[in-house]
């Protein structure tokens, strides 16, 4: 299934007096600033593969070498060293003629400032690539019209680019690249010149089109939010090097180094992270079968105000400390009777954006359940706040509960005794202390 559309192998690009020497010195382990006397190393040892149908995002600050990298992919810039392989042919070794052929057949491009031909109508711009490919006029206009329709510009076909707004112009740029019919599309900061609202709209449209047409897209941006939204995988560049390559979630939750960590600091995490990525194992659970007494014990051990009641790992509802105490006093043993079933739940793939509101209002941690209502995790408010507030992810791993837990363990026998004393003796038939904390992990 995963067919490779494009592969970059140890790409280097050095501008300046002595590029070859600079590359050798970089290969010998010298740094970018060490070789400054020989030239500016814009891209250093970049290797990656892009799979068919994937949106591969290259992200980095200004000057990190993104444009240089993408221009080597379709041969607009020849690499100083290394290779670019597109569908098995080596772009870097191609003659000008072969290069033109590769560009016509396999790679098209969308530009930051649209780069439309100002003296041509929208439809002629959209059909430009086909014109170069030598497609007959009637056919290319028809194909261009179909794509213009898709990007919502059908009625502007006979206008000139300067009569359109920025967003519309970039749609023409997009249409031109889509009409070309190439499998791979390169997009260099394609949405950076647009204002935020239009930009968001374009991003959504791009994802839609990509799903519909299945193109391979290599997208350049300096905006992490954009990268996270669009990317199936993201390569983070710094000073010419790819410092991390991974899925958006990997990059967010496990930044390879301080640079990436700092970079991802400002990202709007709620747009990227799903409930699954931030949820924690559900410690606060008790099986319905453990009865009121079991619930009471968990509440004491965990020093909590409420606990999730489960049955065969499925969520039944929430039991509050108040209800438990009342039940204990009344001599009730059936937990099911006091469970509040109207508890808020979220799906594992819901974005944090969508769950923040419910989480903040809920007195208990949010329950994350799958389609069969199985409790697979919980999101305590503090976790959510930490994520939004961008507290170091490692904090989450700290065993904050272990110390109190140990302490509580000492008192457990006493608590058990107290609990046993109150209800009728029959309740003990439940079968001793039930595992509580591991319940969710079963």
């Amino acid at each position: 299934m995963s067919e490779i559309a494009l592969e970059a192998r140890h790409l280097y690009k050095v501008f300046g007096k002595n590029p070859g020497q600079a590359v050798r010195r970089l290969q010998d382990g010298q740094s970018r600033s060490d070789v400054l006397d020989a030239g500016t190393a814009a891209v250093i040892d970049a290797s990656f593969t892009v799979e068919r149908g994937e949106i591969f995002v290259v992200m980095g600050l200004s000057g990190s070498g993104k444009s240089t990298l993408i221009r080597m992919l379709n041969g607009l810039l020849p690499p100083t060293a290394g290779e670019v392989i597109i569908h098995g042919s080596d772009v870097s070794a191609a003659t000008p003629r072969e290069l033109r052929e590769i560009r016509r057949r396999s790679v098209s491009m969308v530009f930051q400032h649209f780069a439309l031909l100002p003296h041509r109508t929208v439809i002629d711009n959209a059909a430009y690539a086909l014109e170069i490919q030598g497609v007959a006029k009637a056919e290319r206009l028809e194909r261009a019209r179909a794509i213009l329709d898709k990007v919502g510009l059908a009625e502007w076909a006979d206008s000139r680019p300067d009569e359109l707004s920025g967003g519309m112009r970039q749609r023409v740029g997009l249409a031109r690249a889509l009409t070309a019919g190439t499998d791979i599309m390169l997009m260099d900061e394609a949405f950076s010149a647009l204002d935020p609202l239009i930009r968001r709209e374009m991003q959504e449209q791009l994802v839609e089109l990509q799903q519909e047409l299945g193109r391979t897209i290599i997208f350049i941006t300096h905006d992490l939010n954009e990268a996270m939204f669009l990317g199936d995988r993201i390569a983070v560049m710094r000073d010419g090097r790819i410092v991390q390559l991974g899925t958006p979630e990997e990059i967010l939750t496990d930044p390879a180094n301080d640079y990436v960590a700092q970079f991802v600091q400002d990202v709007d995490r709620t747009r990227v992270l799903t409930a699954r990525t931030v949820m924690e194992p559900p410690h606060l659970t008790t099986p319905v079968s453990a009865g009121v007494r079991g619930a009471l014990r968990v509440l004491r051990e965990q020093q909590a105000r409420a606990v999730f009641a489960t049955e065969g790992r499925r969520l039944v509802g929430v039991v509050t400390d108040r209800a438990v105490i009342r039940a204990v006093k009344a001599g009730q043993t059936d937990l099911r009777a006091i469970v509040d079933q109207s508890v808020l739940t979220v799906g594992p793939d819901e974005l944090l954006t969508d769950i923040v509101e419910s989480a903040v209002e809920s007195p208990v941690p949010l329950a994350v359940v799958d389609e069969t209502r199985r409790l697979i995790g919980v999101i305590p408010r503090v976790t959510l706040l930490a994520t939004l507030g961008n507290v170091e992810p490692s904090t989450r791993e700290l065993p904050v509960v272990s110390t109190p837990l140990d302490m509580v363990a000492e008192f457990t026998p006493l608590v058990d005794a107290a609990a046993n004393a109150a209800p009728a003796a029959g309740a003990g038939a439940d079968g001793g202390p039930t595992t509580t904390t591991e319940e969710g992990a079963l």
Partner: protein
Amino acid sequence: MDIAQWFADGARIPLGAWIKDLIDFLTTYGGWFFDFVAATFLAVYDASTWLFTTPPTWAVILVIAALSFWAKGWKLAVGAALGLVLIDLVAQWDNAMLTLALTVVAVLIATTISVPLGIWAARSQTVSNIVRPVLDFLQTMPAFVYLLPAIFLFSVGPVPGIVATIMFALAPGVRLTELGIRGVDKEVVEAGHAFGATPGRILRQIQLPLAMPSIMAGINQVIMLSLSMSVIASMVGAPGLGRPIVQALSSVNIPLGFEAGTAVVVIAMILDRITGGFGTRDRSRRRTSFSKTSEPDAAPAAA
């Protein structure tokens, strides 16, 4: 000792003598070439002269008025017709037509040299580096100075006039063409490359159309410089309005000088407005009907 002597003599280098030697050399060994050039130019000039002097006055006025109308509108057409009538009324019609004929030839040749040269300079930094100082030289050298070598190489008559005119008028054509093409949005040119267009197609479909306003401004400059130079060229025997002006100068004939001068101004204004009109009208026309004319290989409409 020689050097000391040379300093004692005032440290003069005989630059002028060297140039003269060079020209002597050229006439001796390149004579056939200059004869060929002279013959070609003369033939073209004769054709052009025939074109302007054979038809009756009213016919020429009508054609120029029509051209003005096409380029810009009825106001220019009326203005041009009135101006031409004025020239006829001050008895400078024949001279004016000869000047026009010479100017047209010089402009045609200067354009066919300068536009391709400008394109070449825009694409190659080396060419640009070589061409630039040569153009500086050509443009700043006082116009009269061209006349001397032109006489030596082509003897007197219209040909040295044409040659001197071309030399003098070449520079802005090259410069503005190069500037225009270099000024084309780099991303748009890159787009052409990115979609696999050949360099020739990029030149025809992207660079030339987008550089056209600048190129037209260059051609306009070439025309104006040619006109002024063609008057000066009368000093070496080129026919036209320059003759009465030179004559008026030597005999302090104010009325004659003024009449001929007015004729030059009228022609200059007509030419300037017509070419200027073509420069802007060209774009506005494409604005409305480009989609109908955008055949893949249709060269951009040049003036």
